[in-house]
């Protein structure tokens, strides 16, 4: 049944067609039958450094991957990868490059963008960041009383929050002695509820706020920062200028805006408009990560990502981990019609990975317009969600096993953990590994996993199986492997965007809501609720809010 496209003159359309025909045939086969084929694991698992990508529980054959690689080739994936790495304006709607890969280039390399080598700028900023990290680790960053800072609060949202928070949690085992005294918190929610709780238990004299905002106009972040500033003013007799100087750091691509807010140049760390928010944890946005694991740990994370960059750029597509992961997704979404994707780390340290990937994937590829402005002919990014696997087993796995929806799953787990810890903890990791393997097996095989023992099961005890999953097995979780894991997903997202012909680096879909919120805020501020002229639903709710506020006995 070799119906593959010829390797020379492939057209995108012919590849899509060939894959469609192939899919029609393959759809009839249950995963349990595919998994009974000898040598499948060997043919469908791929390795790079300490990472193993196991695609053997996907509903595909080795020749499916060949056809998918043909499609990637026909879509000029290699050309796009080069364009990405060389700093071409791959973000076409905003006419700029997307150079997160430049953020992890080693010192001494060069990358010319618009005639200028960006690598020295990147490393100069890392150096500045290292200076701040050193002061804080040596307990020499002093607050307004002269006491050393012992609490750092990252105020940011979206890419200025999810990436650093995810990495800090993931690398909690790698805190060097000099960082042990620093408590690091993340505050993002617009309504201030996280901040209020945190301020109650913190000491203003020893708390430093990192205000992270690419544009320095993000209202969520500036609202939290203003509350923090007020808290410091209330706590001390020191002049506001001095307070801001000692207790605020800005991480931004808009230095003037940060300066207008009151944060002097000396307390600013910069990055550039060519770093997308959700791709920014490698830049100075990663300051909380560097504070958590030290600059040496941070550099290891960058090195892990850089190593994967090189693999992505140079490995043949058929052995290229991000490409294979992406094309498997294309297969599931566009040929098997699966539009839900669960991220299931079997490691509590990766608790924030699902939220991070939700943004990375859905903000990047949650689009229906192609680069040329035409409507997308294909389904694009699926709905992505997730949870620490063992906990999700007690939550939504019921749906995975017996619901009506097809869901593709990513299991992420490391082989080694707790090597130098107590046997009870080693046992816990063993337990997590066993559960990870068990769930992937049952999802794929269904009833067949237990063989004849299931023969007399009642209908509600039946397992359909045939849910495809990928296992990403890491040797162990380290700064380096986390760097590689994140880069793997970044490049996966890019590959899919190339296949779909969309721009993954803009996010125009979030703008209208902001504009509308400004209009509504004006109405709420002015108290003109009853005469508002929005749609009926909005008018109705505004009136209801007004009525409830009027009847509140505590209102002024």
């Amino acid at each position, binding site marked *: 049944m070799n119906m593959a496209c010829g390797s020379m003159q492939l057209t995108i359309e012919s590849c899509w067609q060939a894959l469609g025909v192939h899919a029609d045939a393959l759809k009839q086969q249950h995963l349990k039958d595919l998994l009974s084929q000898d040598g499948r694991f060997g043919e469908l698992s791929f390795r790079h450094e300490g990472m193993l990508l196991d695609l053997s529980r996907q509903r595909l054959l080795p020749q499916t991957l060949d056809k998918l690689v043909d499609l990637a080739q026909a879509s000029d994936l290699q050309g796009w990868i080069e364009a990405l790495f060389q700093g071409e304006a791959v973000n076409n709607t905003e006419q700029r490059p997307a150079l997160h890969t430049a953020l992890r280039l080693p010192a001494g390399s060069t990358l010319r963008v618009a005639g200028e080598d960006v690598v020295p700028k990147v490393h100069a900023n890392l150096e500045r960041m290292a200076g701040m990290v050193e*002061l804080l680790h*040596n307990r*020499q960053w*002093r607050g*307004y*009383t*002269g*006491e050393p800072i012992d609490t750092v609060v990252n105020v940011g949202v979206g890419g200025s929050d999810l990436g650093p928070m995810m990495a800090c949690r993931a690398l909690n085992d790698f805190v060097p002695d000099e960082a042990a005294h620093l408590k690091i918190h993340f505050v993002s929610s617009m309504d201030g509820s996280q901040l209020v709780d945190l301020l109650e238990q913190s000491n203003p004299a020893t708390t430093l706020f990192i205000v992270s905002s690419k544009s320095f106009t993000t209202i969520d972040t500036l609202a939290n920062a203003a509350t923090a500033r007020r808290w410091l003013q209330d706590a001390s007799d*020191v*002049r506001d200028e*001095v307070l801001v*100087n*000692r207790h605020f750091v800005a991480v931004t691509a808009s230095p003037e805006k940060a300066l207008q807010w009151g944060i002097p140049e000396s307390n600013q760390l910069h990055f550039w408009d060519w770093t997308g928010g959700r791709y920014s944890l490698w830049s100075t946005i990663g300051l909380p990560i560097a504070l958590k694991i030290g600059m040496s740990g941070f550099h290891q994370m960058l090195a892990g990502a850089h190593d994967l960059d090189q693999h992505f750029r140079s490995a043949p597509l058929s052995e290229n981990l991000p490409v294979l992961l992406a094309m498997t997704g294309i297969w599931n979404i566009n040929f098997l019609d699966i539009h839900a994707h669960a991220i299931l780390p079997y490691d509590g340290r990766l608790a924030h990975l699902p939220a991070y990937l939700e943004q990375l994937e859905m903000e990047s590829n949650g689009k229906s317009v192609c680069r040329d402005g035409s409507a997308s002919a294909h389904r694009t990014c699926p709905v992505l969600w997730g949870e620490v696997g063992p906990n999700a087993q007690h939550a939504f796995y019921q749906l995975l096993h017996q619901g009506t929806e097809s869901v593709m799953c990513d299991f992420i787990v490391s082989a080694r953990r707790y090597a130098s810890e107590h046997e009870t903890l080693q046992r816990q990791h063993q337990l997590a590994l066993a559960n990870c393997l068990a769930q992937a097996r049952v999802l794929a095989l269904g009833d067949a996993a237990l063989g004849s023992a299931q023969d007399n099961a009642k209908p509600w005890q039946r397992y359909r199986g045939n849910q495809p999953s990928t296992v990403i097995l890491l040797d162990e979780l380290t700064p380096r492997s986390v760097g590689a894991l994140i880069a793997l997903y970044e490049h996966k997202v890019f590959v899919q965007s190339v296949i779909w012909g969309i721009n993954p680096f803009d996010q125009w879909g979030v703008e209208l809501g902001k504009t509308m919120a400004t209009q509504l805020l004006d109405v709420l501020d002015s108290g003109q609720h009853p005469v508002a002229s929005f749609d009926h639903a909005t008018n109705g709710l505004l009136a209801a809010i007004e009525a409830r506020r009027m009847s509140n006995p505590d209102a002024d």
Partner: protein
Amino acid sequence: MKIAVWGDELASWVAVAQLAAYGNDVRVPQAAAGTTEIRPSQSSVRAEPGLMELIQAGVIKGQLSALATDECEEVVVHWLAMAPDEEDKAIALVQRLAQRADGSLLVINQSNFGIGASDRLQALLNSDAGQAVICLPDTLQQGRALSQFAQPKTLLVGCEDATALQSLQAILRPFTGALQSLQLMTRREAEFTKFAITGMLALRLGYINELANLADLLAVDIDVVRQGMGSDERIGPHYLAPGCGFGGQHFTQYIEGLAGLFSEKRRSTLLDTVLAENQRQMELPFRKLWQHYECDLSGKTVALWGVAFKPGVASIDNAPALRIIDALLAQGARVRLHDPEALPEVREHYGNHASVCYCADKYEAAQAADALLLLTEWPEYWSPDFERLAQSLRAKVVVDGRNVYDPALLRAQGFTYYGIGRL
């Protein structure tokens, strides 16, 4: 008597010098095979007043020699004053002694290995053969260690064997003329008592410092309060002087040991808090200066009088001044240092740092400085020529970390004065 002394601590070297001075044949193990030089490796020990001279005298008289380990191990009396992290070494030593000796052995343990350590050493020996461990807690203070060894007023002795006690008394006879009490107890009790005394002193210092900081905020002069407290006979005047924290190696090591026990066995943070607050207290003069200059000390020049952790020693072990110098340098300030004895140690610590100036004269240190910090209450700082000081300084700001000056007097001469809990 032939006595082998083990350890490279102040207590071991004081024992070496004094035991040799009274005619004992004192042996110390060679620092390296074949080296006959007898010299403490820590400069703070070498700085102990009179110690090096007394060691030298012992060598000249032939009472003191550095021998191979084997030759040290062949004697009957062993004096152990080793570092707190050398318990494994002590255990290995006592195991070797037990293997080679059939008859009696006397091990006098002065090391701070924690409570129960002397019992652990005893368990390695054959008590039926007259092999005994005595716990003799070290009560030496740096700066006065020789005289304290020579004329103790009280001795705590943890000993559970009458013959061993007789031997110890024979060894200590030259030194017990002024002895008022010898408290005999079990080894474990002796170790615990030593810990308890040190902890009590730390608590008093921690408490008076807390009171001084509160007095600062309530416009009360702690000096008046302190005298009032000291007049109550239940309290007494000792260890009630507020200041910028306690330092010194041994004191801190004992308190850390006790704090560790409290935290491990009792989940008690009492002494952890004292230690943490002491660390903060050490930086108090820095914070006063920081606030005076509105949180910006970059480019400022600061004079420091006193770097040693207390007057009378050349040692800077855990001295508050080190933390303050580090803080000032980190803020981009320059420091000009004076200390009557500790400057060589300070120079060893900071080397030729562009922002550190070592001054032989205290007024030279004050030259063109934006403030003077007094951190060690050496006698020569108590009554300086204030007029000359005022002329030397660029800004007449004095932070008195030891409360030695009269605030009113300094203010009358135009100084801005900050003390610890002073009006």
